[in-house]
């Protein structure tokens, strides 16, 4: 039975629950917007990285380089799109 529950994945699951609990802190405790956003950004991206490496086995084949490049490229363009849109339409809109 225990071979069906490898330690790496069980630990990954526990860690993801812990990250969720930490993120929940922004709801239950009073903190400034900046601190709250920092907590959320850190926990969300850690959580995403965890899924990618532990559960999705992104680095297990010879295509590792291309797969990570693909994901990083996507994340970079995604962030540029989100922040560029906010810059043009919200933050710097008269």
């Amino acid at each position, binding site marked *: 039975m225990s*071979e*069906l*529950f*490898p330690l790496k*994945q069980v630990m*990954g*699951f526990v860690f*993801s*629950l812990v990250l*969720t609990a930490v*993120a*929940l802190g*922004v*709801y239950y405790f009073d*903190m400034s*917007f900046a601190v*709250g*956003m920092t907590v*959320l*950004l850190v*926990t*969300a991206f850690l*959580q*995403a990285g965890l*899924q*990618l490496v*532990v*559960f*999705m*086995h*992104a680095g297990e*084949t010879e*295509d590792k380089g*291309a*797969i990570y490049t*693909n*994901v990083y*490229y*996507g*994340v970079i*363009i*995604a*962030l540029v*799109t*989100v922040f560029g*849109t*906010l810059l043009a*339409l*919200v933050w710097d809109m008269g």
Partner: protein
Amino acid sequence: MKIDHSLPLEYSTEENRLKIFGFWIFLGAEIMLFATLFASYFTLYNRTGSGPNGAEIFHITPVLLETILLLTSSFTIGLGVHAMRLGRQKAMMGFFVVTLLLGLAFLGVEIFEFVTYVHEGAGLQTSAFTSILLTTLGTHGAHVTVGLFWGLYILIQVKRDGLTPETGNKSFIFSLYWHFLDVVWIFIFSFIYLKGMM
């Protein structure tokens, strides 16, 4: 069809390797799809018109429930792929069934949540904010729905054909999809719900 037995089933043919790689590229496109929804959501966040804002309609209980359901399903499908690599077909199918049931439960809670929103006066047509909120959540929910059918089809095929290079490949790709939906949910949970209730 050349089968390379030194590799896990899902990677064992050239075609299988192409499919897994292609699916990763597809997930890259999905990142941008959800990023566009998030960009629109943040832009329209304060544009509530005469409708309610996020803090007025978000409730922590269903959201927390959804998060735990989806996180657990992501864990169980990971165990399913692990069981598949051990050649344990029954165990693998068991984990996949649990995953799909958890997904179904998630969808149930989400539908309940949508009904509540509409009752609280936050329908699709109420304001820019509610439109983008329900569209973003709905896009994720639609992905989960498609995943439920897809997962069911794969289960039927594993039952019918056993663990073959084809079914193994399909199962693995499905697991990538499911994990990805979990990642998207984490961002929804953090930057739509928790940020909105902060």
